[in-house]
C-alpha cells in the first residue's frame, strides 16, 4: 500500500523512492518541466517544475515524495514565475521559432504556448553561437541550447560516449563537444544514439529532415504539452497499482 501527498488538493499516491514529479505524472497530474526526463536521474536545473511544498518553493523533480505533504503547483503565482523562466530562456538564446525546424515539436515553444507567454519580457541577448555542421548526418545548432544537459546525460549514461559537456560559468556557460577539435565530426556520435533523441529544443538535429513533418502532424499541434507529457510518463495502472511502462 502506498502513501499519499496532496497536490493542488488532490490525493496523489507514491511509492518509496519516487520524487514528487514522478509520482504526480504517474498519477496523471502534470507539472511543467523541461530538464526532467523519466529515463534519467533528476537534474533540477531548469526550475520550471518549481512547486510550493508546505509553503516553501522547491524543484519537484528532485523533491522526494513524503506522506502528508501539501503541495501547490497549478497556481497563478507559480505559473507567473514559470512564465518568467521561459522568457529568460528565450532571451538567452537565439530562438527563431518561425524558421526553426523543431517548431511544433519543441518543448520550450510548447511550454511557452501552454503557460501563455505572450511577450518577450526581457531584452534578447542575441549571443553569437556558431553552428556545427561538420558531421555528415547531424547538425548542432547551439543557438537554441537551454543547458538542460539531457544530451550530456544521455551520451554519458546510455550511449557511453561522453560526446557532450558543459563549459564556462554563469551567463557564459555553454554546450561543448568533447573532441580535440571541438567538432562533432571528430566524435563517435551516431544517429541511433540516445543523445540524438532527448534534446527538448532544436540543438541536435538529424540532417536533411527539416520540415518533413507537415503542420498538423507535429507533436504539439493537436495536444498541448501538458497533455502530451502525461502520455509520455510512466503511469500508475488503476487496476494493478503498477507502472504501465513496466507492464510492456
Amino acid at each position, binding site marked *: 500500500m502506498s502513501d499519499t501527498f496532496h497536490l493542488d488538493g488532490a490525493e496523489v499516491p507514491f511509492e518509496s523512492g519516487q520524487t514528487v514529479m514522478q509520482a504526480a505524472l504517474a498519477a496523471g497530474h502534470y507539472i511543467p518541466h523541461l530538464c526532467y526526463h523519466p529515463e534519467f536521474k533528476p537534474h533540477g536545473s531548469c526550475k520550471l517544475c518549481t512547486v510550493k511544498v508546505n509553503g516553501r518553493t522547491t524543484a519537484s523533480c528532485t523533491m522526494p515524495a513524503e506522506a502528508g505533504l501539501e503541495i501547490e503547483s497549478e497556481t497563478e503565482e507559480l505559473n507567473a514565475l514559470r512564465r518568467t523562466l521561459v522568457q529568460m530562456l528565450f532571451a538567452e538564446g537565439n530562438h527563431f521559432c*518561425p524558421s526553426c525546424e523543431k517548431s511544433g515539436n519543441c518543448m520550450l515553444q510548447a511550454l511557452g504556448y501552454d503557460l501563455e507567454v505572450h511577450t518577450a519580457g526581457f531584452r534578447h541577448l542575441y549571443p553569437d553561437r556558431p553552428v556545427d*555542421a561538420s558531421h555528415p548526418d547531424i547538425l548542432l545548432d547551439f543557438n537554441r541550447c537551454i543547458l538542460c544537459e539531457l544530451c550530456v546525460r544521455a551520451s554519458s549514461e546510455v550511449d557511453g560516449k561522453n560526446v557532450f559537456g558543459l563549459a564556462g560559468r554563469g551567463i557564459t556557460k555553454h554546450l561543448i563537444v568533447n573532441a580535440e577539435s571541438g567538432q562533432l565530426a571528430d566524435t563517435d556520435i551516431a544517429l541511433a544514439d540516445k543523445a540524438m533523441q532527448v534534446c527538448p529544443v532544436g540543438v541536435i538535429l538529424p540532417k*536533411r529532415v*527539416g*520540415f*518533413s513533418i507537415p503542420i498538423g502532424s507535429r507533436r504539439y499541434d493537436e495536444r498541448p504539452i501538458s497533455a502530451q507529457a502525461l502520455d509520455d510518463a510512466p503511469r500508475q495502472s488503476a487496476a494493478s497499482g503498477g507502472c504501465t511502462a513496466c507492464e510492456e
Partner: protein
Amino acid sequence: MTDTINNLETAAHPENLRRVAIDPVSRVEGHGKVTLLLDENDRVHQVRLHIVEFRGFEKFIQGRPFWEAPVMVQRLCGICPVSHHLAASKAMDMIVGATLTPTAEKVRRLMHFGQMFQSHALHFFHLCSPDLLFGFGSDVAKRNIVGVAAAYPDIAKQGVLLRKYGQEVIRITAGKRVHGTGSIPGGVNKNVSIEERDYLLKDIGQMIEWSRDAVGMIRKLFEQNLDEFNAFGRFRSHTLNLVRADGAMDLYHGGLRARDMDGNTLFDHYDYSHYWDVIFEDVKPWSYMKFPFLRSLGTETGWYRVGPLSRVTQCDFIPTPLANQARMAFMAFAGGSVAGATLGFHWARMIEMLHAAEMIQELLLDPDLQGTDLVHTGERQERGVGVIEAPRGTLIHHYKVDEHDQITRCNLIVSTTHNNQAMNEAIRQVARQYIDGKKLTEGLLNHIEVAIRAFDPCLSCATHALGKMPLEVELLDVSGNRVDVLSRSSDGAFCSPD
C-alpha cells in the same frame, strides 16, 4: 515639353530646387519614399522612388542549413510568402538533385495558384479598387476599402471572399494560411486528401464566376475612363517573364522570355539556371535597391518590367479557356493600346486571377493530388537556382551550398527589384502629367501612389490600407528648412498648417 523621361532621374542643377518628399511611401516589407525636386514655378525636375529599408536575408541566411531556406526566406513577405517558399524550394530541388514526383509538382502548383489568387484579389479589391472606383483625386476619407464596402458592398464582399478562398488553398497545401511549410527540398510534406479536395471544390465554381465578374469590372472601368486610364503613367519598356515550352503562360515553371519595347524577341525559353548571363544588376548611389538590366542592352536602356502585364501580353496563350478568352479581348481592346498602359496591370492581374481559379479547379480534379510519393532526391549539387512568377513578377532565388549542407551564398532578385526602374519611369510620367506646374495637393500626390500601386501591392498596402497610413509631405528650401507641410494623420484626416 522638352524634358525626356530619363532627364527626370537627375536634375541638372538640384541646388536651386525645392525638395518635396513623400515619406513614408511604405510597404509591408519596409518603407519607400518618393522625392521630387521642383523649381519656383512648380515645374518638376527630378523624381525618384527610393526603397529605403535594408532587409538582409541574403546575408543572414549564410551558414544556415539549406533545408531551412524555403521556410526562412518566405518571411521576406506577408502577402506573397508562398512565392519565396516555392522559389527557394525549386532552388533546393537542384541542390538535392531532385526530379519532382507528379504529386509533389501538382501540390506545389496548387499552392502557387492559391497564392496568386489571394494576392491578386487582395491587391485589386482591397488596395486599388478605391482609386479606380472613386477616382484618383477623390475624397481621401472615402478612398479606402471601408468606403468601397459602403458604396459597393457586393464588390467588397467578393474581394474578401475571393482572398479567403485562396488562403484556404494555401492552408491545405502548406499547413498554414501564411508562412506554411508544405514545400521542402525535393518535394512536399503532404498531399491533398479527398476531404480537403472536396472542401475546396465546393466553392470553386463561385470563385471562377466572381473572377470573370472582376475581369468585366476592370474592363468597364477602362471603357468609362479610356483616355485617362490609357495615358496614365504610360511608358514603353522591355519585358521579362517565364513561359512554358509551347509559349503558354506558366506561372510556376518555364524558360525566360525577354522582348524589347517593339515586341522583338531578345531571348526565349532561356534556361534560368544561368540567368546571370542575360540579367545583371546595376547600383545607383541614390537608392538601396539594385537596378536589374538585360545584359545585351546595357545599363542605360536594358531595364524592363515584369508582372501581370508582361506575362499576359508576352505569352502566346493562356492554357485555360476563360482566361485565354479574356486575354484575347484585352489584347484587342482599344486597338491593343491598353496592353502598354500602366493601369493595364490591373486588367492583366484580373485575367491571371481567373486563370488561377481555372487552374485550381483543374488541379483539384487530378487524382495525382492524392498520391503518396512526395519526395525525391538525386545527386547532390553545389548550386541551386529557383525562378517562379510571383504575383508581382519574376522572382529569382539563387543559392550555393557547401559540403556541410550550409548555405554560403544567396542572391535574391525579387519582383519589385525587377520593376525598380519601371516604377520610377511610371511616377516620372505621372509627375509630368499631373504635378508639373501645379500647386501640390493630397489628391495630386495620390496619383503618384496610384502608379506605384499598379506594380506593387506591398507598397500600396501600407500607404493605402484603410487610409490609416500617416503621410507627410514637406516642402524644404535648399538649406533644408521647412517651407510648407501637408500631413495625413493616422485617422485619414488631411490637413495643412495653412
